[in-house]
């Protein structure tokens, strides 16, 4: 552990007013609950809290097409019926509804991730956290899966101004398709996504065979999983793969998307991870000791989202939080136990040992084919082969 790690945490109070609409599972109110819980544990006294600047359209256009950004800025609920062609073109209206202050919401969460990346680049902090960010489905020219602007791509582009290589890790239950797609042709970003795949689960991409193309071939890692994966299986796989990635890739910075819908009991998810299991991934990435940008993502059972990201804020601050949640304005949400850790439930793990083994093997084979990063000592390839024989 580095001495005196500096952690920057980004939060804007205006997110509390953001409302996607009745029954829409994405509730930015969960960010208020998270922030409240973080403060109730006094964690703000171990980090610096910033309000991000609201991202400008020109910053968003570093990745997104200018006409898409402009449309997002212009459109509002009262006029959307007049632009039905564009609504279809930009995939707005169903999963991604148009609501009041939609663009402001995008500015806040994108601004947070961009500012986080800039603070890291300027070495003003070692770890930067933006729980409002992590909207990984947004594409260059369209919205997708509740995501409008891809703050992760914008943050990574910022980091790439200072680092030759950036590693992106995604533990949301959904495939990180927007980020993978953006960097599919380049080796300057390695995207690693652990997600549910199959049964036509959204978004439908993320097969282990999708590895990138052109210069980006073998720089996209997909770990497709089935329902019910538990802490033990997930962590073993996660650690093995990330270790191998670090060995082969040597990134200058890491971006970690911590979607909480991979937790047991999530409204839209189907994994069986406990908060401890989820947070163990965060701890593991933290101890790699690289500049680290941490974002939120999915998470549709807001109490569990608040719990999870509070525990993970603690983990990033090296503070082990007690289970008893201190009294706060949102205490009722944590009934009946008022405890921080949510255990995994009973759920059949459909990921057999042989299945996980074969996924790991394929991923390791793909990783072995990439060139070792220049400047990194060349390892003999044979040394890595024992991984093939480690049984689950």
């Amino acid at each position, binding site marked *: 552990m580095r001495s005196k790690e500096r952690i920057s945490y*980004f939060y804007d109070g205006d997110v*509390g*007013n953001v*409302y996607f*609409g*009745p*029954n*829409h*599972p994405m509730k930015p109110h969960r960010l208020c609950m998270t922030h409240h819980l973080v*403060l*109730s544990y*006094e964690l703000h006294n171990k980090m*610096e*809290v*910033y*309000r991000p600047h609201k991202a400008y359209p020109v910053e968003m256009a570093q990745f997104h097409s200018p*006409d898409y950004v402009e449309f997002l800025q212009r459109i509002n609920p009262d006029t959307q019926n007049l632009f039905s062609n564009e609504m*279809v*073109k930009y995939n707005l209206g*169903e999963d991604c509804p148009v*609501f009041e202050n939609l663009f402001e919401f995008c500015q806040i969460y994108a601004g947070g991730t961009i*500012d986080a990346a*800039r603070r890291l680049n300027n070495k003003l902090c070692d770890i930067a956290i933006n729980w409002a960010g992590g909207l990984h*489905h947004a*594409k*260059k020219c*369209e919205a997708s*899966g509740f995501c409008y602007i891809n703050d992760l791509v914008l943050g990574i*582009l910022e980091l790439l*101004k200072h*680092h030759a290589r950036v590693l992106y890790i995604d533990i949301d239950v959904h495939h990180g398709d927007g980020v993978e*797609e953006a*960097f*599919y*042709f*380049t080796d*300057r970003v390695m995207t690693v996504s652990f997600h549910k795949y*199959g*049964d*036509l*689960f959204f*978004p*439908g991409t993320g097969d282990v*065979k*999708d*590895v*990138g*193309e*052109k210069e980006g*071939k073998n720089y996209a890692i997909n770990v497709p999983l*089935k329902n019910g994966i538990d802490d033990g299986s997930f962590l073993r796989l996660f650690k093995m793969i990330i270790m191998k990635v670090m060995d082969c890739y040597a990134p200058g910075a890491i971006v970690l998307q911590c979607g909480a819908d991979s937790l047991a009991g999530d409204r*839209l998810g189907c994994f069986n991870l406990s908060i401890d299991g989820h947070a163990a991934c965060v701890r593991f990435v933290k101890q790699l000791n690289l500049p680290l940008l941490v974002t939120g993502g999915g998470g549709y059972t807001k109490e569990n989202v608040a719990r999870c990201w509070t525990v993970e804020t603690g983990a990033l601050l090296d503070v082990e*939080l007690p289970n008893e949640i*201190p*009294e*706060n*304005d*949102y205490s009722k949400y944590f009934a009946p136990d008022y405890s921080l850790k949510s255990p995994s439930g009973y*759920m059949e793990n*459909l990921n057999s040992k042989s299945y996980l083994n074969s996924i790991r093997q394929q991923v390791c084979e793909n990783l072995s084919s990439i060139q070792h990063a220049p400047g990194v000592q060349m390892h003999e390839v044979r040394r890595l082969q024992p991984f093939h024989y480690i049984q689950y």
Partner: protein
Amino acid sequence: MNILNEKEEEKMGFKEKESNFRASPMESDLKVFLSGVTDKMKKDPKMDVSENQCVVKGEDSISLKRKRECYSSMLNWIVKVAKDPCNPAIGSLPERHKWKHYGDELHWKQILLVREATLLKRNVDASSQQSIWQKKQKMHPSIYDVQSGSERPRFSQRLITAKNSSQKPQERFGSDSSSSNSQTDKDYDSSADSVGFWFNARRQKRVPIGPLCQVDLQEYNGMDYQSDKSKWLGTQIWPLDKKEPIRSLIERDPIGKGRQESCGCPFPSSSECVKFHIREKRIKLKLELGSAFYKWEFDGMGEEVALSWTKEDEKRFTDIVESNRLSLDKYFWDELFKIFPSKGRAALVSYYFNVFLFRRRGEQNRNSTSKIDSDDEESEFGPIGNRFGQMADISPGSIFRSPKKSHLNSR
């Protein structure tokens, strides 16, 4: 035929409801190609002739009837596998080199033989398939062209991708570089790989590629990072600016302190005790945070929000939501905007989350012994709507369509 036990069948019920939209086109496709290959199968010398086999040499009415029954049982089996390829009751496919040791009475074996026969037939028809696809296209991609006309919209990319996929039924749908042909023989996904493959392959999504998808990235030139945008690093809210005077000295709790189990209250853990400690904490936080308390809009959080509402208004709010909650004609947000024109959307949303839903959660805590789900608005407030209540048509590619665990309500 009963390949799944009763419990599995029950569980299937939830998923069947969800997956009906994709089962129907699949079933009709199945019927078409199964009926189309009967001739092929009859001619195939590999097909055994026996009482229990699907294909028999004679054409008498009894054998035809048995053939039909066989096909229908095979059809049912395929549909069940396609709906839930991960179901462990289905069992796993043996390794490819062992297939020849298994008899043709097994459904999976029959499917593989049919597929082999069909693929031979389909390749011949590939060119005609392409033209059928084009004829069926109702909307030309050019209607989505932007005024500038500089780039083709992504929709055309998808249509092209789908068109290509119909021409290559055998291959995994990825680009050349990602096909990794040595992998295809590995039975890593036994339930989906072979039998489910044919159906999954038609729906497997490719990673979209093109100028409208990938980022334009410059090569790293290793120059020192120049930051002339120091104003865009965020505004520090905490710790407070040293210039801000500290109004009062308060005892700060240590970092990471949890809830104390014992307190000085006469009736610990009673609702009065809890309310007291929540209020106490709030006051402490307010004193400690200073200006940050307002910058983070903590003054607009929690049940305190109700303090700016009259009892009358609160009752009206509750009545409107309750009376319109399951209505298909009226949406409570429309009514709320009408009745409270001066409050504004932000105030209404704030009240909804901080007071209304919060109190509802309190009631759930008191009344419900089973798992409480404060995010389950659907059972209380009706189906999903966008934009404060307009009904949304759920398309097949929607994130809402994702099948979930069977114990949650399916959408």
